[in-house]
């Protein structure tokens, strides 16, 4: 690990003041479950590390009590605290169930909401110090014609075929969350659906924040949507999903409306499956429409050489997420 200067400011304004206009020289440190690994591998070599752990306003889940059921989750809130929050569990199971199965207990007790949203991707070429891939200033993406079993299947026009690692992001986007961001010019609010982008060079990250901005919080409003997330996993703990589907929809008179379906681990950003949402919208939620939505979600997938199986997994994950949200029997459990 390269030496660095450590800062631990007490306010978000001070933290933002320490940030740089370019990526790379300064890094924000929250739980450290991602950054420390990157530093140890010399993939991240910051001169300054700014810890946000002393900023009290970043921690906690707050009921905003605006008349609507609205919750503000501080960016420094631990994943374990999100998973265990009684109110969030009641209204947003898609979020809490997902938070509760990230990594293992150690990860969930260190990792934070903000860190989860802003973490770097897990591509093994990117994480290998000796492979100079596109995101580290190199000429090409090694996964395109290399080992790509865990990479993206929705890759239209993308030069880099990572999958976005966050599993909270698809759930939050399906739930219509917004993020509050602080920069040198003050605060701004951004829809989580517009928070991510597909990076293609060393000067871009997996999100749209400027290098001198930080996430303060995420706000969720309860619209009484049925919601759930389903992950297809090779291993049950300490593993990333192969494919994730998060869904949210209103259920009135037996029919689904305002359907949102967002996929994880299939594209460089969380992937909003609009065709799948249309397939379910206005219809009764049953075996037939669940399967149809799954099929529609997989439409347009262009798998790489080794990840064709993910297309099939998208169909299954979407079907099971809808079924879970609707409270139907989980037929796949013994």
């Amino acid at each position, binding site marked *: 690990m390269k030496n660095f200067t450590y800062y631990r400011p007490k306010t978000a304004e001070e933290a933002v003041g320490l940030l740089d206009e370019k990526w790379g020289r300064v890094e924000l440190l929250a739980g450290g479950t991602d950054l420390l690994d990157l530093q140890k591998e010399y993939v991240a070599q910051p001169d300054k590390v700014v810890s946000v752990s002393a900023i009290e306003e970043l921690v906690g889940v707050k009921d905003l009590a605006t008349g609507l059921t609205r919750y503000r989750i501080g960016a420094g809130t631990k994943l374990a605290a999100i998973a265990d929050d009684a109110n969030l569990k009641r209204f947003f199971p898609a979020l809490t169930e997902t938070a509760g199965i990230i990594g293992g207990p150690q990860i969930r007790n260190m990792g934070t909401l903000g860190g989860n949203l802003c973490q770097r991707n*897990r591509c*093994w070429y990117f994480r290998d110090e000796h492979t100079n891939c596109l995101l580290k200033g190199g000429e090409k993406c*090694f996964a395109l014609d290399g080992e790509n079993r865990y990479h993206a299947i929705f890759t239209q026009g993308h030069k880099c075929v990572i999958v976005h690692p966050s599993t909270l992001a698809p759930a939050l986007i399906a739930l219509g969350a917004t993020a509050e961001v602080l920069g040198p010019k003050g605060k701004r609010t951004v829809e989580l659906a517009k928070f991510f982008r597909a990076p293609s060079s060393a000067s871009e990250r997996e999100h749209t924040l400027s290098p001198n901005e930080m996430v303060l919080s995420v706000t969720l409003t309860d619209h009484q949507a049925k919601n759930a997330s389903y992950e*297809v*996993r*090779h*291993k049950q703990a300490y593993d990333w999903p192969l494919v994730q589907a998060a869904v949210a929809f209103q259920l009135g008179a037996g029919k689904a409306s305002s359907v949102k379906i967002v996929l994880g681990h299939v594209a460089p950003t969380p992937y909003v499956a609009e065709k799948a949402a249309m397939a379910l919208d206005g219809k009764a939620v049953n075996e037939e429409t669940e399967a149809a939505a799954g099929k529609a979600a997989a439409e347009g997938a262009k798998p790489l050489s080794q990840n*064709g199986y993910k297309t099939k997994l998208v169909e299954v994950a979407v079907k099971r997420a809808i079924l879970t949200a609707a409270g139907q029997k989980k037929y*796949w459990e013994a």
Partner: protein
Amino acid sequence: MLAALEEKLKVEKGDLEIKPGKIVSKSDDKKTWTWKAACAKLGMDVVEGKGEFKAADKLSNNGVGGVQIAEVWVDTETGVVRCTLVVAVQDCGLIINKLGCESQVAGGVIMGVNYALFEERIMDRVTGRQLNPDMEFYKLGGIQDLPRVDVHMYDMPERGVIGIGEPPTISTCAAVGNAVFNAIGARVPYAPYTPDQVLEALSRKEGKG
């Protein structure tokens, strides 16, 4: 204890007595030892024994046998395999340390299940580098991924002492593979039996049908 101390401290028999926190000499009140110092003089008791295994021709490191049976759940939509039970019957001739033997077999089964379902060294064909030299993508099962392991040691004293090291890990992968075949009616030709491999085996079977 006083008798042992009298010998170690070189005093007359019956001369020592115990007072609060110390040992004192009855004949010479200048001679006292703290309890700790006196106990330290006691030293250790030694147990010694010698033995010899004379029937050297009966010592064997081969001919070891075992049978393993695996139970798996296969999610035929996702291709995810979960191994739920392995029964391992293992012979190692004369069993000397039953608990140690059983533990060795259980360990071998756990390694075997990982070999069957998770472990894989992924190499990049262009750079020649290993892509998963870490515990993140070099997958190893955790508690939730591993089966109940029932070990039965098959004691055959008449065969003499036989090794137990590696043999218990050999059959597990094949047992799991056979269980997967039994469950889905198609062979998964390569270990580990990952979701993509299992799905491919299933679609091949459907294609043939």
